[in-house]
């Protein structure tokens, strides 16, 4: 199959029965979603900077936020290259509108109290840990390299938030109640993480993306273990929330973007 241009990326997708444009578009969407998840999660978590429950945890949370933003930079840069329209990481982060963001809803929920932040981050860290573990075997060498680097960070994040789940759940009556409520409030948002669509399936078939069913299984086991150790019960979920993939975000997303994008929107191209 002849390709439109000579970029090395095309070599990896040319054995696919689809047109190069479709497969390029798939990869762009796939990488963009990962980038948006890291970006929005990092932006939210960074709100704790200067507001942590005590100095040491303040530094710890800010470190994690920086890891996530570093990951977002790698992924959005790569997404821009795949797209081939000349968009940079900054263009994608600061000059897209709400409906164009592809992150899961759980990433954009307000920080809440420390228990809510901890439970959210634990759910995400466990997901990322299994996700990037699988993604390091992607046939796309750029994604595999990003995953291998990211996995080391995920491992630490999971250790940190996993500890906190137990500490809060098996702590005082007040901390137990707060983390129990946080887990109950967040659980409906976790189903979206495993809701594979056509792009996920095609990317998995081409061994670029990961198998979400396998990750869901590992995630459920990890979460069950952590909840048991934290003396918490897995809440019954009567409804689920989703829509981030389609750009249908919660009411919180607009405010997050307004804050995150305000500087570049006001002075486009401003350098640090």
């Amino acid at each position, binding site marked *: 199959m002849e390709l439109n241009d000579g970029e090395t990326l095309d070599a990896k997708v040319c054995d696919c029965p689809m047109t190069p444009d479709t497969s390029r578009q798939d990869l762009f969407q796939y990488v963009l979603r990962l980038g948006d998840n890291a970006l929005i999660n990092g932006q939210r978590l960074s709100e704790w900077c200067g507001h942590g429950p*005590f*100095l*040491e*945890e303040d*530094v*710890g949370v800010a*470190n994690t936020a920086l890891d996530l933003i570093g990951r977002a930079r790698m992924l959005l840069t790569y997404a821009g290259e795949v797209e081939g329209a000349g968009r940079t990481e900054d263009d994608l982060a600061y000059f897209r509108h709400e409906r164009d963001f592809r992150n899961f809803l759980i990433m954009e929920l307000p920080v809440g109290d420390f228990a809510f932040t901890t439970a959210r981050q634990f759910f995400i860290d466990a997901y990322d840990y299994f996700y990037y573990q699988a993604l390091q075997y992607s046939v796309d060498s750029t994604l595999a390299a990003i995953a291998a680097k990211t996995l080391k960070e995920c491992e630490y994040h999971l*250790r*940190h938030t996993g500890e906190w789940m137990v*500490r809060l759940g098996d702590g005082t009556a007040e901390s137990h109640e707060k983390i129990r409520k946080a887990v109950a409030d967040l659980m409906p948002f976790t189903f979206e993480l495993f809701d594979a669509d056509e792009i996920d399936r095609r990317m998995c078939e081409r061994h670029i993306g990961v198998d979400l069913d396998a990750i869901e299984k590992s995630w459920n086991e990890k979460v069950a273990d952590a909840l048991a150790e934290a003396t918490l019960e897995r809440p019954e979920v009567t409804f689920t929330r989703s829509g981030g993939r389609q750009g249908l975000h919660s009411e919180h997303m607009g405010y997050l973007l307004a804050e995150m994008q305000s500087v570049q929107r006001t002075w486009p191209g401003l350098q640090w």
Partner: protein
Amino acid sequence: MSKKIKHLPLWEVFIRSKRGLDHKHAGSIHAADGEQALQYARDTYTRRNEGCSIWVAKSADIIASRPEDSASFFDPAGDKVYRHPTFYDVPDDLKL
């Protein structure tokens, strides 16, 4: 009425910057237990690539000499120059 601030226990942090070197005292942090102390030591003292190994020890477990001990502890060594290895003839071809 002022609220009394209760801190978590204090831990001393020792970092080894690279293999073959000693652990050196880096500072201290507050943490609930050893695992948390290790994590906070990592987050606070190794974020700029400073270390390859961390020790933490409860500050309360360290037995330290006191300033008022210094006269009896350290002054007696002051005039015992013969304890320094400065009275040997070093062979010329020995590189120091």
